[in-house]
């Protein structure tokens, strides 16, 4: 791959990333030595500075990320205070709500319930500090399990998860129950009491 192509790939990947991207990851992705990645990133930083861009490529703990240029702080402050960046999308809120009520829950379970990939939604929720990894599924997959944080409770203004409104008479559909059970060793209280339905218990 040409140097130019590698630079473009770095730009694209860092632009798409929510968290800083490790140079090792960029090296692996572009099949380029890490030292070259670092050199190319330094070049990019210089280019943006030279071109007087309003953003910058920064080396922070954990890797590279795009951020706003310090000169533009005044605009960003006003922009951020306006709250445009402070909206939780409908899908994100729904995923958060499922995690809140059904924790601990794995990414695969969430994807099965939501019917779509939840990668970026979970990343956003973790970044916001509402959700955290709270353990691993003891089953073969050792899937990461997610749950809500203390910060989540604070922001919702409730003391504990028990203080969230109950989902009333809402009974999830069998497919949702199945999705929740699949791939997760069940906690005792989750095991369906109806023993006559062995199908509901995951293999």
């Amino acid at each position, binding site marked *: 791959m040409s140097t130019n192509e590698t630079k473009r790939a770095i730009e694209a990947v860092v632009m798409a990333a*929510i968290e800083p991207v490790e140079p090792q990851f960029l090296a692996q992705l572009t099949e380029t030595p890490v030292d070259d990645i670092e050199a190319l990133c330094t070049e990019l930083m210089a280019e943006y500075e030279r071109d007087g861009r309003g953003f910058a490529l920064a080396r922070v703990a954990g890797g590279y990320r795009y951020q706003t240029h310090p000169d533009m702080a005044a605009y960003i402050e006003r922009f*951020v205070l306006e709250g445009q960046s*402070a909206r939780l999308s409908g899908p994100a809120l729904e995923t958060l709500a499922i995690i809140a009520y059904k924790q601990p829950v794995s990414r695969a379970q969430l994807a099965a319930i939501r019917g779509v990939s939840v990668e970026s939604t979970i990343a956003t929720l973790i970044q916001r500090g509402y959700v955290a990894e709270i353990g691993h599924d003891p089953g073969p997959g050792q899937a990461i399990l997610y749950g809500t944080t203390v910060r989540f409770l604070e922001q919702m203004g409730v003391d504990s998860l028990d203080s969230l409104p109950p*989902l009333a008479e809402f009974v999830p559909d069998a497919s949702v129950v199945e999705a929740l059970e699949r791939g997760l060793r069940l906690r005792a209280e989750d095991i369906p009491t109806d023993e006559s339905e062995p199908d509901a218990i995951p293999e």
Partner: protein
Amino acid sequence: MSYDVRTPVYEGPFELLLHLILKEEVDIWDVSISEVIDRFMVEVEKLDRVDLNVATEFLLIASTLIELKVRRLLPGAEMIELDEELLRFEERDLLLARLLECKTFKDAAKVLQGMLRRGAKVVSRSAGPEEPFRSLSPDPLARVTPAQLAAAAIRGLTPPAPAPEVDLFHVAPIRISVREAADAVLLTLNHTRPVNFRTLVAGIDDRIEVIVRFLAVLELYKQGIVDLDQVETFGDLTVRRFEIAESELDLVAMEDWESAVARLDADADAVPAQ
């Protein structure tokens, strides 16, 4: 056209009909009725699941085709009245229009698919502002109440395929009940002078309303309030009010019709107007 690489699985009768005519070049009229049905059934059997709505639509299309074909084969076709002839063209044109519409959106869908595919090739920036700006922004959850969270949970946990709902949409066109139709008929028939049924339904465009009015006339006949006469088969129906009714108008009996009308209307909903 490389679109149809998969085993054809038809999502609906229009799609199937499109396929039969455009891809297999079946001339619905040049083949025998049994062959039309056979080919139709072969395709229908390929459906991996039977959805009652779909099955009904297939039946409807199949019967429309057969009806059109049978009419053509019937002896004495030359003697068909002009408006009946026109009606047949109207039916054909309706089917044609629906097939064209189906094809139009099928092609539009292909373009949308391409656009979505291209759209999926890019990832938009969603990291948001970095610190310290991030902490400046009002917390999005601060505006969410626990009740809204619970509502979001229920939305999120509701499976994609909802339980079939009773769609009240089809109820809308019904503006008149048999009972009301009977009142309207009696109002027109306030003399014993016979009135042509066409007169009784003059100005009514909705097929269902015409049928409801006809049902009302039948009920009034049954109750001995009006008399019916038809001089020749397929001739005009005349309705005449008895000078002295054989009985009082039985309102309870009228109500029995309403469920039948509701069914009728539901059927009509399967054949949407235009």
